[in-house]
């Protein structure tokens, strides 16, 4: 069996697993009992989406997906910090 075929199947199953992980995070985002659970779900969701984009980059062999995942990581960090600040203080910029 060709090693590249194995790599293709591995990336496909990894993407399926990451999709399931994103579904778990989305369920926590939608159904989480309190606001902090929703923020945690959003945090997990963007990390999983970032890893999913990295696997897309391995599949296609282009580095464009890497830059997209870097942007997702940066914006996700900023958004989570802003949401946590809002939860703590009631406003984001004081």
């Amino acid at each position: 069996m060709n090693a590249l075929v194995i790599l293709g199947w591995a990336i496909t199953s990894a993407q399926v697993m990451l999709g399931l992980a994103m579904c778990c995070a989305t369920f926590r985002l939608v159904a989480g009992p309190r606001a902090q659970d929703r923020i945690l779900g959003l945090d997990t969701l963007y990390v999983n989406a970032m890893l999913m984009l990295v696997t897309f980059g391995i599949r296609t062999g282009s580095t464009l997906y890497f830059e997209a995942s870097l942007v997702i990581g940066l914006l996700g960090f900023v958004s989570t910090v802003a949401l946590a600040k809002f939860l703590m203080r009631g406003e984001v910029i004081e």
Partner: protein
Amino acid sequence: MNAAGTLPAWAALMTALLVLVGAAVTLIGSLGLLRLGNFYARVHAPTLGTTLGAGSILAGSALCFSVLEARPVVHEILIAVFVTLTTPVTLMLVVRAALYRDRTEGSPNIPAAWAVKDLISPKEE
């Protein structure tokens, strides 16, 4: 696999293993986020994805591109360092906010403020 057609067999197998392990660990972390019963327990689970999951998938990506382009391609380290630095910061902020909310509501299942203060700076006697 059209663009990565020139990848040698050992690099393809190692990349496949690294990506599979990373995705499985990330899935386990997200299942923990789904299944654990308490917010303070749930905070721990997604860190599986941000440490071993992200590290393994990014190592696989770095290996794949390094072998494809026949030179060290290490820009995945940028994401790895960034995720490693930001995850503790965000989780500490979220947990502090959650603890503040639970304390102001008088929830019985969290440590009180005086108990935590005693743990941080114990009294002399």
